[in-house]
């Protein structure tokens, strides 16, 4: 089971490393969004510093939508999705593998964007441990929920428009939790960061379990 999940994750990540779609398209897109936020909020450095955690996570969510869509588009491009079904790999492993690959990409994105926020919005990090843990837990949460919904809309003609509508309300708690945790880590607001980390971890766990068990049913297209 773990071997198969590892196989799937390795395949997805290798494709992303080769194609560089993430690095050449998704990351520049995310940085552009950050720059647009700066324009929208005017050159008010104080406002940018205050709202940096929220802006950061909104950007991550938007970029995650692209990464999730891409992960499923790769399988659908030339019938590989059918072959995955035919391979006899347990759907739980496929879910785990795809979610892990998306999570890894999100973590890379967070690191790059985090550097961007520090540089562009002039924030300073007070609690590195909290920052890292919250970043990982939030990536896991978005990846599990995203993989579940990505599979749900995969193969539909309207998947690009439907995925945001379905996924964003569901990951709202991640946005709230991760923003509060980062506010604490950046020292811009006294939030109970570690408690929010609990929420993030709980979210990832719930969607991990839920996704793993409903994934098979979702892939069984007609």
């Amino acid at each position, binding site marked *: 089971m773990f071997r198969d999940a590892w*196989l799937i994750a390795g395949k997805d990540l290798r494709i992303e490393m080769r194609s560089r779609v993430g690095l050449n398209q998704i990351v520049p897109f995310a940085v552009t969004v950050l720059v647009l936020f700066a324009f929208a909020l005017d050159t008010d450095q104080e406002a940018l510093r205050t709202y940096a955690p929220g802006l950061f996570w909104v950007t991550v969510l938007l970029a995650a939508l692209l990464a999730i869509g891409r992960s499923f588009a*790769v399988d659908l*491009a030339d019938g*590989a999705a*059918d072959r995955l079904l035919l391979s006899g790999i347990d759907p739980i492993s496929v879910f785990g593998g795809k979610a892990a690959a998306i999570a890894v990409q999100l973590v890379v994105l967070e690191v790059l964007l985090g550097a961007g926020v520090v540089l562009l919005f002039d924030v300073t990090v007070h609690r590195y441990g909290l920052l890292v843990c919250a970043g990982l837990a939030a990536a896991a949460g978005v990846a599990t929920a995203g993989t579940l919904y990505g599979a749900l809309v995969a193969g539909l003609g309207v998947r690009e428009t439907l995925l945001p509508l379905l996924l964003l309300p569901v990951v709202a708690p991640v946005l709230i939790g991760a923003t509060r945790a980062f506010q604490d880590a950046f020292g811009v607001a006294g939030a109970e960061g570690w408690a929010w980390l609990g929420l993030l971890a709980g979210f990832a766990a719930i969607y991990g379990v839920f996704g793993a068990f409903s994934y098979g049913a979702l892939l069984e297209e*007609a």
Partner: protein
Amino acid sequence: MESAVRLRAAVTLLGRFPALAGVDLDITPGEIVLLKGPNGAGKTTLLRLCAGLCSLSTGQGWVLGHDLNSERRMVRRRVALLGHRTGLYDDLTVTENVSFWARAAGADSIDVDEAMERLSLTGRLADTRVARLSAGQRRRASIASLVVRRPELWLLDEPHAGLDQQTRDTVDALVRGAAAAGATVVLATHELERIAVLEPRVVSVVGGVVRADDDPADSESPDPSSEAEDDRRVS
């Protein structure tokens, strides 16, 4: 011995279109079966049904002894379906693709080397990204990634279509080899004379049903009149 494929009044709906409208079919293990019929007759759906990728709306079916209504997962891992799409990842090399599918099926790396050898995917070709391959080379890579699975039932959907001479020969060799190894082969193709030497049992598929067609001589090219049918196969 058990049938390789046994269908009873099998109906498969694609959306609301009955691609299969009540198929009765028996295929014994080791048989080579040629599906013949106009485009849109339901050949592709029949093959996908046998692979466990389409569901039965009504009726019953068993493939390699597994019930198509309840054990499609078991069916899937024992068959190989070569369809119009290759099932390869453009950004990976031929070797990476073949070994990925081999490992997904639990096969060894020796199998990978052997399969690549058999389909003459050696040398520089092995380390080329699939995106840069010609249609024929893609199809060969696709076949190699199926060979490693050692399937008991081969389902080939227009395996010759749009290919160069070398690859067509490769396909024929594959069918011959599979039959020699005792596997069952079901194929739909327009290249009837190529397959005729293998003396397959010919089965006509028309309008979503199957008609036994015992006369192998009666294998002239299919009726092109109802090709427009294909458009209705919504997915």
